[in-house]
């Protein structure tokens, strides 16, 4: 789980080109959108594309999306659960 969180953190930074952000400084329980990493709606959409492309994981609706992006830990959990189902 730790490894997946770290991997996702690096993927988020590289996908969104957050050059000023260091992975070790990211709080795994902070919200990803708005506060914390300060991602906006386009960033969210971009991450959804990354999740589908790199993990085969899709997010069905806005409500699920809110939970998924509520923190890095929540995202990793979602990827771990749904990735297994698809394999």
């Amino acid at each position: 789980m730790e490894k997946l969180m770290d991997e996702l953190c690096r993927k988020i930074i590289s996908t969104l080109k957050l050059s000023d952000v260091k992975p070790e400084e990211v709080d795994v329980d902070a919200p990803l959108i708005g506060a914390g990493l300060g991602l906006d709606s386009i960033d969210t959409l971009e991450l959804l594309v990354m999740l589908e492309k790199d993990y085969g994981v899709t997010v069905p609706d806005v409500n699920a999306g809110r939970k998924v992006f509520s923190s890095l830990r929540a995202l990793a959990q979602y990827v771990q659960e749904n990735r297994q189902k698809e394999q």
Partner: protein
Amino acid sequence: MSRKRMYVNGFSALHKSGIFTAEGLKAWERDQNGPADVKRDQVLSSPYPSFGKLNIPDKLAFSSGASALSKVSEPGGDKTGICMCIPQGSLSTDLFYMDSLNKGFPSPAYFSATLPSSTIADLAIYFKLKGPDRIICGGDAPAFSALDTAAYWLTKKKADKILWISVWEKSPINKSSESDCAASMFLSLEPDQDTIAEIILDHEPSGPVPDQVELNEQDLFMEVIGALMNKEQKIISISGSGFRGYISLQHK
């Protein structure tokens, strides 16, 4: 002749020779090939996480504008507008988007930047530039047209301040062509505590010019920026299809 006087309250240019600022020319670092490699802290002192996301035309516009506004006391406002010239439009970003589409995963981030008007979004958001905008992507003398629009809006009080920006991106069509360049001037109708120089723009219409040799506006406007940096007087005459004009710069 329609003569308009404006005041320059800030300026900057990103050029292959370095960053032109009021403090002089800042050379590129060894790992930088030119303007497209500009780093955030070279043009903006505060952190800006979105800087890394910017595609080349957006980065050139943002960096040049941010650098021009760096010493300005109150850049933002409802009547602070942007007049931009960007002849290449968003072509380089269009190619990145097309690539993502061809790979089966079209990128919303790239797509949202595939419009010339999106190049001003970050500047407008960051500095709260809420006034009128004019984005000129071509035609005859687009940089001069953008400056002329700025002068007109200020004179007619459609805006109090205008950020004039010109972005000349290295062409993805001809990769061996000129290098990237972006120039900005922050202009106002009245002088204030930030004022560095006075600029007079004159403009009269003329007939079409057959086989008009394309004006090298990049060189012309870099002369203006160079004169601002070196605190020199300068007069530049410009003639193109449909107009004759001149820009006269006088340091304060």
